[in-house]
């Protein structure tokens, strides 16, 4: 049994791709991003994802960041199970009124630096759902937002770039 697993792992090889270039004049590589995160935060970056009412499309792409190609954890970025363990909140969706309180409480439970990144068109500006009896629209209508990542849904690399941008801008 274990040999089959090992053989498949060996056959697959390492599929991780170089980390994205996040600014025009600097081809940032994995080690660079890792070092940068360490310089800025002094630790790995921990993220709590909050779906505040999305259609689940953005979650699919955030989940994709965890696949071997993007090797998120290799960069020193980790999704955690509680806002109390998180440096950054990754929020998706137009904020459904039914989620407004939960989102506020999650934000309150997050310690400094308390970064917030809004992912997807709905989180940026309400998207196709807009504001209505049932939604508060964009995330910044409910909690302060450091960085927005447009797209419906934004591809994994855009999400990664947005996360790094938020860390650089606020914490440095």
């Amino acid at each position, binding site marked *: *049994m274990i040999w*089959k*697993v090992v053989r*498949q*792992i060996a056959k*697959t090889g390492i*599929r991780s791709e170089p980390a994205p270039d996040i600014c025009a004049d600097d081809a940032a590589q994995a080690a660079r991003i890792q070092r940068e995160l360490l310089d800025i935060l002094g630790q790995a970056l921990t993220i709590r*994802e*909050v*779906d*505040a*009412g*999305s*259609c*689940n*499309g*953005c*979650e*699919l*792409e*955030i*989940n*994709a960041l*965890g*696949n*071997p*190609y993007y090797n998120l954890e290799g960069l020193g970025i980790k*999704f955690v*199970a*509680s*806002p109390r363990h998180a440096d950054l909140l990754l929020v998706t*969706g*137009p904020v*459904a*009124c*039914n*989620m*407004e*309180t*939960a989102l506020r409480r*999650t934000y309150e439970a997050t310690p400094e630096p308390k970064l917030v990144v809004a992912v997807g068109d709905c989180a940026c500006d309400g998207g*196709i*759902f*807009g*504001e*209505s*009896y*049932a*939604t508060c629209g964009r995330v910044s209508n409910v909690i302060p937002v450091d960085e927005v990542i447009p797209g*419906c*849904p934004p*591809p994994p690399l855009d999400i990664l770039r947005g996360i790094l941008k938020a860390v650089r801008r606020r914490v440095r």
Partner: protein
Amino acid sequence: MRIPGLDLEFEALPAPVPIWHAQVTAEQWQTAATAVRDEGGRLLALWAGPIGDAQGSAGKAREPDCMCAAYVTLEGAFWLSLPLAPLPQIGRQLVYPDLATVFPAAGRMQRAAADLSGVHALGAADTRPWLNHGAWPADHYPLQQDPGKLPLMEATALIDYPFVRVEGDGVHEIAVGPVHAGIIEPGHFRFSIVGEKVLRLEQRLGYTHKGTEKRMTQLPPLQAGKLAGRVSGDSTVAYAWAYCMALESACQTTVPRRATWLRALMLERERIASHLADLGALGNDAAFAFGLAQFSRLREDWLRASKAVFGHRLMMDCIVPGGVTGDVNLDQRELLLHQCDVIEKEVRTLFNIYEAHAGLQDRFMTAGRVTPALASRLGLTGLAGRASSQTWDLRCDHDWLPYNFMDVAMATHHNGDVAARVLVRFDEVFESLRLIRRMLIEMPLGDVACELALPQHAARGAGWVEGWRGELFVALELAGSDQQNQIRRCHLHDPSWQNWPVLEHAIMGNIVPDFPLINKSFNLSYSGQDL
């Protein structure tokens, strides 16, 4: 006679799959439900039609307010409308006979209709609000308002939801959510447990309710497909197709053959993408991280090819009213064919590993079991239903393009546990790969889209598609051209409505740590049922 014991005038809707419509009286409403159940049929959807809409108040006779239900029998789908007494004033209660005693799945749909449209099931046992958590006043019915003049509501205090309490020695509760520990949608689960054993699970959903059905009525019909494709992001192709099918049926238009084949091609690709993600996640939830790493890699390859060929990783907005946005050229065809070979080989290897892995099978087998009898009584549908011997698959049940060309083999299992739902997913991946190959090779040449002329008069249309999770149903009522063909009502029904309540039964007697695994084996949509 389409429904035994009832003499109803059915009107066939011009859709590629057999769908009929009829009006019923209150008495027939109940007789029909019982007759369908006794025949082995199922409740497909239940919703309130357009209620008290402003178009009618302009002095002209409008259609009466209706409560609607759709059933499935071996012959096809039946959409029944029950006219309700005219509304003397907005906000006054309208009632109809309860169906939850015949079809338990109707319960939550009825509660949602009460919250959104102010129609109430007479004699229903459970009348707690479902989608309204206190975000809007209890006497404000969003779907009764004029879509152009909808007031923004002051949020009221959150409702203290009366969960059912289990009492006894050593019983305690675990409350989970709405913000979950993983990267998933929000919902609340209340477990009543003894030690680590689950006595009862009660779900509370509706957190992602974002007024989708109201929003539909504010969009022009030709653009509303974009919103339909965002009811549940993992089923965007299925929803877009179901909505377009409904609109095309209201317009009495048949789309070009090649467009239909391309839609089916995308639907099968969406099925495989979802199954690859689930198979990986199921391995991971049973502590086999290797499975997640491998399957998520295959899924990424799959999505990248979708981006290369269809222009979007999830194929959002690729299906539009009248057809599809793009064609597949010869190079792209080769790319997709080649990918089928590569993926099939890899999935075959992983299948053998999953099958032979004793630790994994130990977690999968007997976990979260839904017996065929229970599945049938509660109306378990789609993939989860097929894993519990509910042998329905729209791709096999009816003679329609392009599936009638390829003898789709239905994947079923009788154990109804996590292992069965895993096996059905594997089988469906292999079958869809076969279908994709045949579609790519046999697809007829021709146009990929046609013009869609909106109807002069008020019209009704329906769409019905077998998405990866199960069957989606879209019921559309359009106004005539004198009212700019506004969407009077569009109900988008997700199979998760039927399957969420069954999950409450599947977890009983299992241990709490198995919940994530069992939940994932169903992988139900929150957004799709919260709307």
